[in-house]
């Protein structure tokens, strides 16, 4: 394998550190969601809170993927496989969004609100 015993001994401290960061990140997510003094934007859950929540989650996910899953020193083949799947999933969601946010010009649906499939005033 790529990792030798000496490498692994050094990595142990790093794994513990990253574990601690993940714990703190979870606590931070919980505090941002429940404490008013960390509520940015409008009162209650709004787009700003959504972005903050997902940013923290993405940072945690990146740490897990890069360090626990050894993605920081993986071969190109793995990068193509794994991130290719994200790209594929995102394209499918993107295609749905394209259709979702297109207005319906069909007169058979007179109440269909332009911009959202299925919604009407």
């Amino acid at each position, binding site marked *: *394998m790529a*990792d030798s*015993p000496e490498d*692994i*001994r050094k*990595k*142990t401290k790093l*794994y*513990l550190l*990253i*574990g601690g960061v*993940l*714990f703190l990140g*979870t606590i931070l*997510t*919980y505090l941002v*969601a*429940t404490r008013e003094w960390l509520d940015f934007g*409008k*009162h*209650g*859950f709004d787009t700003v*809170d*959504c972005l903050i*929540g*997902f940013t*923290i*989650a993405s940072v*945690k*996910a990146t740490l*897990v*993927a890069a360090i*626990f*899953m050894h993605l920081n020193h993986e*071969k190109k*083949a*793995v990068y193509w*496989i*794994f991130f*290719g*799947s*994200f790209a*594929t*999933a*995102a394209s*499918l*969601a993107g295609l*749905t*969004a394209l259709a*979702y946010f297109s207005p319906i010009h069909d007169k058979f649906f007179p109440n269909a609100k332009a911009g*959202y*499939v*299925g*919604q*009407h005033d």
Partner: protein
Amino acid sequence: MEIPYVYTPRKDTGLVNSKIAIWLFLASEVMLFGGFFSAYVFLRIGADYPWPERALPVIPGLVNTFVLIASSVTVVFAWASLKLRQWRRFQFFMAFTIACAGIFMVLKGVEYYVKFNHQALRMPDGAIVEGHLGKELKPGVNPHGEIKPEDYVLDRKGSQIEENRIFVEADAVTFNTVRFEKGWAKDILDEAKEHNAHITLKDDLKLFTKTGWKPEDQPPIAKIGDKELKAGTELTLDLLEQIKSLYLDARAHNAKVRTEALRDAWTEAKKSHPQESDWEYSDKVDIDPARLVGTILTEVPEATFKIEPAVKLEFKPLDIKAGATQSQLRDGTKIDGRLEESPMVFHYVDALDFRYLAMKAKEKGQDPMALIESSWVITHSPELKEAWEWHKGQIKLLEERLIKDYGFEKDKAGKDTTTPKREPTFTERYRIEWKDFAAKSEGKPRTEREDMPTFVEQIRGPNYEEREKTKSFPSLEVPREQVQFASKFAPAWSTYYAIYFTMTGLHGLHVIGGALVLSYYLFFGRKMYLTNPEWLANRVEVGGLFWHFVDLVWIFLFPLLYLM
């Protein structure tokens, strides 16, 4: 034969085969969960009704997140121990990982159990009541006093009966001879016996059971062995089975006769239209009705029985489509009789949700508050009206506090407009939760509602028996007409719950699967460790990669479903 394996890297990819394989599998998992995540996003954005925000208790999800993160750390340490050839440490860390998986599933099980036992009801005016249904008690027992296990009425299977049943004063029952549910028929028989009522055939069962009858003949009374099926024959399960076999035999016979007749009709048609293809004369082909006389047997799809005297039967609301004079069960059985008072009794109401009502009011241009105050639940329950008034007062205080702390929006000139920078959310205004009921009954303001539940209550919901002392949760008897849609907190209740159970359930299955694989390495890895430790380390690494992925999914699932 041993399956060939390679645990040295290949020259073309630079990787071991198992690594490529697991990453390919994880790519497919990304597609799977990605599909569900994007479906959730679209459903939430596109919902034209109030989306349940922060509907789930956060603490179980939070504890589960810590548990999974810890297990992720220990699975890496397990792999590292194997690489360093430390068997005992590997065992310890792997066991810890699997224990974390177990804790996760136990907490998830508790969450699901609490949800499946919690009742929700939507009324025709749009108000939503949530809580726990009462269980039927023996007459004379005080529902709000001390209740012992023997005070409950039990059904035939020995379980407690929820106070949500449909009562019909039945004087006749018509069974669908093929689809009837034996269990339900038995229940009706038992109930009648208990009340000393008799269930007997309403009319003589007259069927042609043999061929050779003439059009002017009357069908004779059907016989099973020597017994004639006359009006007044006592109903038994065997009798129903026998009528079913009569029907099925007749149907099979008739099918054969009709097929023969149709075949002959086609042959005739072909002879009289020699030049045409079959689809050209197909509309002229039909069975000659005269042929069927004397060869067709009578089919008996339904059998009607009288119940004397009328007996009060009870059914679960899901099993019956009730009508004022005739109701139908899901197996096709028709019950004739008057629909009795069939209320849905909430022993504890722990949430009131007027958001849907308020949304409808705003759509129609009406005042939401006026519509809420004229809703059935506010006009018929003094305790809930009081709770609503208290809640209104608390939200007013919240509004004033937000204006005091954050001020108003400024216009272009820098002066204050009348729009406050922060206002109570739609959910805060129109939804009363169990913590609000609890705070009110303890005389505390709404701002202290997060401080009074115990840790166990944060996970399992309120301790109803304990809070009975402070009369936190009022009871409510809802007449059947006010039940538009009722369900437990299950996928049926709303799109949000459907997707919540789907995603967390699928994720939970992945946790179980991953734990099984890791258990295999823990319990059966010793032999491999002694003969080929590098190969075991490789396998544990690959298993650990799957485990990390499961953790990754949860890292996104927790904020998405619990916090947003």
